[in-house]
């Protein structure tokens, strides 16, 4: 009899705990952002771009007095997915997420985990084209950069910097083949080439975003084409490798080149006149925009269900940097973290993304 009573008491206690847990979870769900953890998932802290996602998230956390967690995939998709699952368990679902996934297919299992946990989130850069954000209730938006516009801007700046503006030969350093951003930026270059028929792309190579490869390939291409007028690079790292190869030949400052991303060294190179332009993707802004949108959805200020499809997946432009504005950009975005105007999430909207 005594055992039965103990058994019943334990059952009642467990049921009570379960019920309380459900109530707590419901409280953590929609409409309440108190104590919500701002979570940003990035590829790693080993490069300034991804590290700045964390800086932006922490600044927002300080502003809103909310805790911040930074998850790092270290280039490992499985780790990225497991970390999201663990974070949901740790926070009891009282979190919002801004993520730059390791690879496009990662968003499918992540979307499922977050849909089950009722966690609002925003994705950056990569998702398979056939996966639609509108299929999911808690996936607020997928945001990417206008890669075509980025490649186009740098190409036009490069062509202007030729000895005879708009006329000459160039070589190009492409990023990883089949990478969405690399493909888009290269399309931008092609678009500029069509508009400038006197500019000839004599050779392009895939440098895989890597500085050493950028250096090696530029050295080789300079043998094949010693008479080039400019170098278009899909990112700053490869551009810095190309610049080193130019320096060895005494051609730094004589052959203009361009990058993309906005790494600290490129700004010095722009100031010195070695690099013509870059387009900076402001990861601090990305982080704050993503987390703010997800937070607004959680609090009910942003009604995800009523958002048009072109606001659920869209592109924003990067910050164009040339010698004219480089000091301002460095001071405003690199040395400091600006207070971004996040009252209108779509103020920088350029176009709908796939």
């Amino acid at each position, binding site marked *: 009899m005594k055992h039965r009573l103990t058994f019943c008491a334990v059952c009642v206690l467990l049921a009570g705990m379960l019920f309380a847990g459900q109530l707590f979870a419901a409280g953590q769900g929609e409409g309440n952002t108190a104590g919500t953890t701002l979570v940003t998932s990035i590829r790693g802290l080993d*490069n300034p771009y991804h590290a700045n996602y964390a800086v932006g998230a922490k600044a927002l956390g300080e502003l809103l007095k909310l805790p911040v967690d930074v998850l790092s995939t270290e280039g490992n998709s499985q780790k990225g997915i497991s970390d999201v699952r663990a974070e949901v368990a740790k926070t009891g679902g009282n979190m919002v997420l801004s993520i730059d996934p390791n690879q496009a297919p990662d968003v499918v299992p992540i979307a499922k985990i977050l849909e089950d946990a009722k966690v609002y989130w925003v994705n950056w850069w990569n998702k398979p084209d056939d996966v639609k954000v509108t299929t999911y209730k808690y996936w607020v938006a997928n945001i990417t950069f206008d890669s075509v516009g980025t490649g186009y801007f740098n190409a036009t700046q490069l062509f202007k910097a030729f000895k005879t503006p708009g006329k000459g030969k160039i070589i190009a350093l492409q990023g990883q083949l089949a990478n969405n951003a690399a493909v888009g930026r290269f399309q931008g270059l092609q678009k500029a080439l069509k508009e400038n028929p006197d500019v000839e792309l004599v050779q392009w190579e895939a440098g895989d975003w890597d*500085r050493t*490869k950028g250096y090696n390939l530029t*050295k*080789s291409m300079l043998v094949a084409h010693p008479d080039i007028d400019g170098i278009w690079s899909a990112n700053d790292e490869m551009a810095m490798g190309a610049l080193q190869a130019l320096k060895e030949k005494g051609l730094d400052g004589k052959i203009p080149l361009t990058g993309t991303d906005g790494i600290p060294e490129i700004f010095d190179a722009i100031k010195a006149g070695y690099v013509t332009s870059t387009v900076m993707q402001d990861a601090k802004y990305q982080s704050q925009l993503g987390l703010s949108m997800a937070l607004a959805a959680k609090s009910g200020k942003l009604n995800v269900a009523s958002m048009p499809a072109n606001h659920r997946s869209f592109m924003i432009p990067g910050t164009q940097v040339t010698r004219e504005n480089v000091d301002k950009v460095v001071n405003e975005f690199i040395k400091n973290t600006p207070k971004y105007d996040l009252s209108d999430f779509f103020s920088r909207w350029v176009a709908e993304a796939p």
Partner: protein
Amino acid sequence: MTLEGGARKSVMVANGNVSGPLARAWRGLQKTGVAGQIVCLVIVMSIFAIGTRGKYLSWDNLQVILSLAGIPAILAIGVHQTIVLGGIDLSVEGVAGMCIVFVGLLLKNKLNTNDVGLWIVPVVMGAGGIAGFLNGLVITRLRIPSFISTLGLSWILAGIAVYINKATTVPLLDTQIQGIVNGSFLGIPFIALIALGLALLMQTVQDKTRFGGYVYAIGGDEQLAQQAGVRVNRIKIMVFVIAGVFYGLTALALCTQLGSAHPRTGSNILFPAITAVAVGGVALTGGIGGAKNAALGALIVTALNEGLVLMSVSPYVQQAVNGIVLIAAVALTIDRRKLGFIK
């Protein structure tokens, strides 16, 4: 059935029965132990020379090939020793990343006032050697296969490197070491001469010392070597230490060549190094090949990649060519008697 003209002649050449100048040259080449690799290099260079109408053999281009082959050769000389031993070292990128952090901290740079000058050479050699010692200890004491333990150490060191470095690219201001790495003597890049010197040094150690003989004995059959009284664990640790020293030198050359230090600078060097080692004729099953093979392998791979770029071969095809070359090289060098099952 009779052998006709050319076929008979080739058999006679192969048997060493012909004493013409060509046969004598071939026998001389065979004595080097890298005849196949030299022939391979000549074939590769000939194809590209024809394909580029001689531009490939221009002094300008040969200088570029030599300067680009120097660093991969130093790395391949380091990695190949662990493969000759019958293991493998996948910690290359982590060790290089950590050594690069030391370079960024200690060599004259834009972010701090340190300037150890040429002392950076023993520092990176020491750091690489310590990492190699750790590799050796984990393999021999904890008895974890080198494939896993070195991969683990690579991740650990890469993590520590990024933690210390805080994702900062350190612009290097040192001109002394940059002058050595990027300079040349009589038009030959210093870095290629350094690689050549290191290859000769390691080959001498492998051919002329007892230590070198033990390494081949362990690579050939570890159990037999142990029964013969070879102190296997000690030799293994020494090999990984020496390999680590080479990774340190590679790291220093890599970042001074680019004029900046960032732990990720060495993040794509492992696969080309393994490819170079295999192409050079070092059997991935152990016991076969030396420093000269590794260095020549690096030269062949660089000559191949450079030629593909010079001929404007599509980048999509270039990746495929690298894969084909790797499989072909391993197929030609692997010792199948050591493989019970292919999985």
